[in-house]
């Protein structure tokens, strides 16, 4: 298990890659990012899985719709 700091840094990189966002906060979500639609969400999930080497169960993956949620799930894995 990597440290929280590692996970934060990786997630920032992933958001830059998938959404082109330079800055993210815990509150970053489909409500604040206009291009975060259901199709782009799948790209986000698959990119996180590839980068972290972890695999989400599909229902968890669909429901984690904010940076806060994603961090919570990642830290619990």
């Amino acid at each position, binding site marked *: 298990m990597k440290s929280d700091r590692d996970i934060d840094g990786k997630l920032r990189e992933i958001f830059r890659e998938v959404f082109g966002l330079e800055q993210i906060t815990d509150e970053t979500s489909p409500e604040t990012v*206009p291009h975060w639609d259901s199709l782009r969400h799948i790209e986000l999930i698959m990119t996180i899985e590839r980068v972290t080497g972890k695999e989400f169960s599909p229902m968890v993956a669909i429901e984690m719709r904010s940076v806060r949620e994603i961090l919570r799930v990642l830290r619990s894995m």
Partner: protein
Amino acid sequence: MVENHGWTESLVKENFEPLSPQTLPSLLARVDEEQSYVAYQRAGRVLQAFETGIPKEGGAAKQGVRVALLGSSNIDPFAAYVRVETHRHGLTATCFVASYERYHRELLDPNSELNAFQPEIVFLDLEVASLVPGAARYGLRDGGVVAILAKLDDLVNAFRAHGTALIVVSNFVNTNARPYAIVKSPEDAAYVELNRRLATHFKSGSNVIVLDVDGLAGYHGRGRSCDGKLRYLAGMKWSESFLPVLARSYAAVIMAARRPTYKCLVVDLDNTLWGGVVGEVGGEGIVLGPNPPGLMYMDFQSAILRLYDRGILLAISSKNNPDDALGVIRGHPHMILREEHFASIQIGWEPKPEQLRRIAKDLNIGTESLVFVDDDAVERAQVRHFLPEVYTVELPKDPSRYAHVISTMTEFEQLAMTVEDLRRNAMYVEQQRRDSFRQSTGSFEEFLCGLEMVVEIGVNDAEDIERAALLTQKTNQFNLTTRRYSQAQIREMMTAPLTRVYTLRVRDVFGDSGLTGVAIIKKQKRTWIIDTFLLSCRVIGKELERVFLGEILDDARRADAEAVEGLYVPTAKNGLVEKFYLQQGFEVGNVEKGTWVFPLSRFSREREPWLEIKRQ
């Protein structure tokens, strides 16, 4: 809904992703490396954003094709895959996508967005569970097979009423099969029956083809083709690993529908058909035999022989001493390909582009019909540079991969296999015999008499639709107007009251050349207008054009027409027939429009003594 989720424009505007054509090569490289969902979506997005403006290697903007993807699951993300795999063949796909249950309305409603989109090709990837009520719960049952075929007929017929696109129906993958089943279930049997009946369900000429996705899934592994992950995450039927494979098969269909077919595989010899250089090691020293590494080359030759059996012409282009190379081809005990398999053999020291030009000339085809296979990267680069229209295969360094490259290439795929395809190689051998007969006879008349030709003229014969459409699509040289027609259009002209579709078949003492001529007549008051007049290059030079035209003029006279009007539309390839109507006694009509007129009051027919004409 044309595929556009509202984000594409804003994405270009805000430029938060480097969406320029310059990023494409690196995105495509990532696709090659990962084959991943994410990589395909990114590359697909760039292709979509710039779909009309991406030049092909510095050349002009590429040609486009309008493709509709209809699926009973979520297939929206699949459009990116189709874009990428079509782009590899130099064609830009504009996609319309309808997921889930929308396909019913899109096909049935004449005012649907699908019809407004005017697709050229419609792909239907439907599931048993969507087509038969109850199947989602209880699976495919007795009666389900008939119900599915009837449902597909309804959808296809409804769409046919207002669209002429090629329809591609995927067959069905039994994802419920128990992998370890010892005794098959009734459902397993029903799937086998369904695919068996579907394969021949749509008649040739209906412009519907069935894509064997079940076979493709078998090749990939059925268990790996649907693994549940994307199903639960995104409502998609297929797995991440199968989507690229399926998209390549769609691209093969798109290319087969769009471009003239490749006709001939040209192979190098040393280190391609066998290992080693025969000029250095001699016939006994080359690597070719039933054990590895010689087996790799035998397998490669077997793969090429399968192309030959499908009607693909074979030719040799080799820098070699002819005696050395022919010695191997004729005498080596483990050669699978022999002299008789090759329609043209160029062995010498000319540059390869020159050898390829000679092969094309020999076979009376254009160099754009050639596929070139050579282990030498320098030779390949030279052919790519001087003959960019030739498809040059990127052969891997490792000869153990050669056979796989041949069996997975899609360049020779065709929408339908005709009897002529299967006979093509035999026909070229017959042609060689005709040529030597021509050289051994004295006058041209003697030659024609010696052939004992029998010509059959058909009019509006539904059996000829497929072949007639194909000839309009691929005949370039002896073609007065070069108008390309689909099977649906030919069918329509055969049934319309003011059009007639003529076909010409010919056989002689050397063999049957089959359907090799097409003419289309449009009647306008008392004038017959020749919309199309073409002959396959295999039968040129035997005065058949005069016979064919004579029959049409005779028909026109008997139908009380006053005149027959011909038209010559010049292209880069049909200079051969520039003076055709003049030679046939037509008078100049409208010079600007290129029309020629034959007043039937002048018509008199001399029957050619050297052939027999049969009318239906």
